[in-house]
C-alpha cells in the first residue's frame, strides 16, 4: 500500500528552511516554506543536501513558456523583419491554449538543443512559404 498522502492547501506552512529546501509549488517567507498550490506534499530525500519540499498536482497546469525553455512553434505569419509563431509545445508536453510569440530576424538560429538566452546575430532567415514547423529556442 502506498504511504498516506498528505494534501496541503495554498498558504499552509510546511516546514522550516533548515529542514528542507523549497521546490516547485512552494514559496518562502520569514524563514519558512509555505505551500502555494492545493495538492500533494512530496519530500525528495537527497543524499547529503536538504530534502526538497514540493507540492505536486497531477494536472500540468503550470505550463507557461519560461525564459530559456525549449518550445515548439508553428509559424503563423512572416514579415521581412520577423515571424509570428504560435507556441504549441513546451518541452515535450502540448499546451492547451497556444501562446503567441515573435521570432526576430536576428534571433533565429536553427539549433536543436541549445538553451542559450542570448543569441548571436545570424543572417536573414528564409522560410518556405508552406509555414513550416520550427523547432528552436525562441523567446515569446
Amino acid at each position, binding site marked *: 500500500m502506498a504511504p498516506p498522502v498528505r494534501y496541503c492547501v495554498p*498558504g499552509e506552512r510546511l516546514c522550516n528552511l533548515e529542514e528542507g529546501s523549497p521546490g516547485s509549488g512552494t*514559496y518562502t517567507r520569514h524563514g519558512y516554506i509555505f505551500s502555494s498550490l492545493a*495538492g500533494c506534499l512530496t519530500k525528495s530525500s537527497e543524499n547529503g543536501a536538504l530534502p526538497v519540499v514540493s507540492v505536486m498536482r497531477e*494536472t500540468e497546469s503550470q505550463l507557461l513558456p519560461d525564459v530559456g525553455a525549449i518550445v515548439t512553434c508553428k509559424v503563423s505569419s512572416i514579415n521581412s523583419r520577423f515571424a509570428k509563431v504560435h507556441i504549441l509545445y513546451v518541452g515535450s508536453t502540448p499546451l492547451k491554449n497556444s501562446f503567441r510569440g515573435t*521570432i526576430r530576424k536576428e534571433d533565429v538560429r536553427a539549433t536543436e538543443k541549445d538553451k542559450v538566452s542570448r543569441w548571436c546575430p545570424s543572417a536573414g532567415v528564409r522560410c518556405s512559404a508552406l509555414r513550416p514547423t520550427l523547432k528552436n529556442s525562441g523567446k515569446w
Partner: protein
Amino acid sequence: MPGDHRRIRGPEESQPPQLYAADEEEAPAARDPTRLRPVYARAGLLSQAKGSAYLEAGGTKVLCAVSGPRQAEGGERGGGPAGAGGEAPAALRGRLLCDFRRAPFAGRRRRAPPGGGEERELALALQEALEPAVRLGRYPRAQLEVSALLLEDGGSALAAALTAAALALADAGVEMYDLVVGCGLSRAPGPAPTWLLDPTRLEEERAAAGLTVALMPVLNQVAGLLGSGEGGPTESWAEAVRLGLEGCQRLYPVLQQCLVRAARRRDAAAPL
C-alpha cells in the same frame, strides 16, 4: 338588474386586499451578533472549467469558475534580448479578470442580467481582494478569468463570492500565497446598535451600514475591505473590522477541508 343570468355578480361590498395578505416578518429575530451561519463548500464540481467552487452560507448560494491562464489580450510584444532591463516587471505580470453576475432569480424581484454599476463595483472589489493572494508574477503575460455567479442572495453575497473565488482559484491549480476568506457585517439603524456578523438578507436590507472584510488567514493580512452606509464613530468601524477578521479565521478550517477533499477526489479520478 333583475334576473340577469349572464353576468357574474361580485359581492356588494369590497374590502382592500391588504386585510387578507400574509403578514411580513417585521423584524429579524434577535441573535448572537457573532454567530456564523453553517457553510457548505465544495470545490471541483464543474468539469469544463479549470477550477470551480460552490459555496452556500445560509440562504446565499454562489458558484464560481476560473479559466486560464490564457494569452493576455491587448498587445503582446515580441521577445527581445534576455538582458532587457528596460521593461518594467509590472508589464510582465499576469492579470486577473473578475466578473460578478447576479442571476435574475437571485433576489425577491426578477432583475434583468445587465445589473449596471453594482455588479461592476463588486467585480472590481473581487479583483482587488484576490490580486494580493495570487502569484501573478508566475504567470507573465497571461490572464486568469474568474467569474462568480450569485444564485441566491441570502445576505453577505460579496463575502461568499470572495471565498468561492479563492477556492476556485486554488482548485484550478493557480499558485497563490494564501486563500482569501470573506466575511460580511451589517449594523442595524438605531442609537447604539451592535455590528452583526454574517447578516441575513432581512438584516442587510434594514441595515444602516454594511461592511465586507477579506482576510488571508495564514499571512494574517487584510486583502480587501468594502464598506458603505452611515456608520457612527470610527471606533465602531474598527470594531467591525476586528469582528470580521475573527469570523474569517473561524471559517478557514472548513475551506481547508473542502480543498483537501477536492484534491483527494481529483486524485482518485485521475488514473481512470
